[in-house]
């Protein structure tokens, strides 16, 4: 009688409170982002304009898309340090290839066909590099940190070689044809934002609603147990790196039309931004747990900080990186309740 009574009277309230508490905790990053936006508006009235928000979201798209792929790799317990260099190399190869087509190797191909071939090449290269990482890590049994630290150097060096140290610039006609991919708006939002949304939604579905997604989380929680549960650990791992590679390919496809060129500084430190976007809002760096929504918010948070710093001139420019660091640590601190 007694236990039953407490169950019926206290429990609904307690669970409601607990659920509310959990929700508040889950809302932490959103609240963080909101308060940052309010601060931005107070500091500069132009912050809240539609144009500025579009700028911020569009520039978030590259890192955001890569970070969605990175979420899978990190949840499975891995890491990829090479994504910035990989993006630069893919951009370089893509431009090199399309220029070659335009300068005669393509025969009588229509410019739009050359463009489509270039885009296809970017995605295939991304998947290929991912496959290579996955094989070295799973079959070769090398730490992901080491493998991708190695390719970080290789990718950028090859790009520098291809570009002869300077810049690889896309053929003018192709560049004109291609630039709308970055600069055109559909239903009021630039294309990169739509692609980012699509990639994030697809990522969330794959992570939460598919067997593959559950396997990724299982491997990250405990690889041995996952093996005993007859999960093909190697195959899942390879797939996460390929997924990330394709994400890098997609980001590059959106990046190239922006400036129409690749240089040895393209994508510098993107790996850190992508990893920060993933972990700042709750995905555990040790794997096993994480959410795509968190990654999206994390990526937006990072670009909003630098946007606000650019829109104001209160703090010495020497301290920009310090302000960014403080906000990142503060948000992570608010998240500390989660595992």
């Amino acid at each position, binding site marked *: 009688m007694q236990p039953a009574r407490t169950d019926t009277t206290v429990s609904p309230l307690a669970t409601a409170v607990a659920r509310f508490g959990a929700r508040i905790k889950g809302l932490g990053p959103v609240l963080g982002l909101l308060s940052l936006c309010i601060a931005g508006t107070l500091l500069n009235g132009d912050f809240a304009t539609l144009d500025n928000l579009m700028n911020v979201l569009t520039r978030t798209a590259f890192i955001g898309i890569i970070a969605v792929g990175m979420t899978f790799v990190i949840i499975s317990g891995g890491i990829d340090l090479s994504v910035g260099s990989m993006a630069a190399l893919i951009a370089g190869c893509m431009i090199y290839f399309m220029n070659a087509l335009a300068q005669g190797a393509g025969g009588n191909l229509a410019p739009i066909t050359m463009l489509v071939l270039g885009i296809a090449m970017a995605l295939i290269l991304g998947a290929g590099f991912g496959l290579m990482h996955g094989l070295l890590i799973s079959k070769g049994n090398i730490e992901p940190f080491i493998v991708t630290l190695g390719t970080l150097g290789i990718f950028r060096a090859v790009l520098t070689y291809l570009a002869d140290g300077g810049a690889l610039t896309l053929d003018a006609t192709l560049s004109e044809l291609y630039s709308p991919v970055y*600069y055109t708006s559909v239903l009021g939002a630039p294309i990169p934002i739509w692609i980012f949304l699509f990639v994030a939604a697809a990522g969330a579905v794959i992570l939460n609603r598919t067997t593959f997604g559950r396997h990724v989380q299982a491997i990250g929680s405990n690889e041995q147990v996952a093996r005993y549960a007859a999960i093909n650990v190697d195959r899942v791992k390879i797939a996460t790196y390929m997924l990330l590679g394709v994400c890098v390919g997609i980001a590059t496809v959106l990046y190239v039309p922006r400036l129409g060129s690749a240089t040895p500084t393209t994508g510098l430190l993107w790996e850190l931004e992508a990893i920060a976007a993933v972990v700042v809002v709750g995905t555990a760096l040790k794997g096993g747990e994480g959410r795509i929504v968190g990654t999206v918010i994390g990526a937006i948070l990072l670009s909003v900080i630098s946007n606000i710093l650019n829109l104001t*001139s209160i703090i010495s420019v020497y301290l920009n990186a310090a302000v960014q660091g403080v906000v990142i640590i503060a948000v992570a601190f608010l998240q500390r309740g989660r595992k």
Partner: protein
Amino acid sequence: MQAWALPSAQAQAAEKLVVGVAIPTATHSFTSGIVWWANQAKAELEKAHPGLKIIVKTAATAPEQANQLQDMLTVNKINTLVIFPIESASLTQPVAQVKNKGVYVTVVDRGLTNTQSQDAYIAGDNTAFGKLPAEYLAKSLNGKGNIVVLRGMPTTLDNERYDAFSAVMKGHPEIKVLDAKYGNWNRDDAFKVMQDYLTRFKQIDAVWAADDDMAIGVQKAIAQAKRTDIKQVFGGAGAKGAVKKIMDGSDPLIVADVSYSPKFMYDAIKLTTEARLKGDKLPANTIIPSVLITRENAKQFYFPNSPF
């Protein structure tokens, strides 16, 4: 210590002269220009002076460069060093060690913190790099208007340029420098900073992008925002793409530039080697002047084969 000051027949000296060249790795177009010009100097000088040996080493970080100095001294037995130090302070001691072994040292561009460690110093003119654009912009705006500035990376070199620019602007009270932020000599960063400037300031007359690479990102941001108030984007360093635009008059926004060519690496190696072959010394300081590039003289600054 003064073994190299001994006057000797050129051919004889050439047999013994081993020049070590320590420069940064090609991580962006300017440093790739440095590498290209260094190799150009090596090829030309070795051809002109049989027996002369020039060893070019590139390094990505200061510790790596310090290691290379040791290797060049002990393995390659260099007796002349031309170094573009990756960092001023951290290379001062390693270079001093080399000089103490009797090697003749020419330092290029980034100075050491103690000039005792060098025999000669050759550099581009960072003051002119900031002063010339300021004067040119002030003149073309008729002393009135709004300017935004993109700086490079937080370094003393960038401070020197920015201070020179600001000093000129002090004499033009009707020109307002709206803000100056770091674009890190990078196109992508410059694009973002410029986007934010465009959001923030409704009327901008000119941009001092302080680097030709950054000017490209700036122009893309202007084009995207469809802004027509900006009359001029002044880059810097004289990259071949920018010089070509000035030469052809093909871009209404890019009409002038200031030279800061990585060719000074070539000049430094050539001056040092030729002086050493004759047994001469270089003057303690040589400044390779930064010159205003306009349509009239652009041809002299156009090197189509260089990556920069």
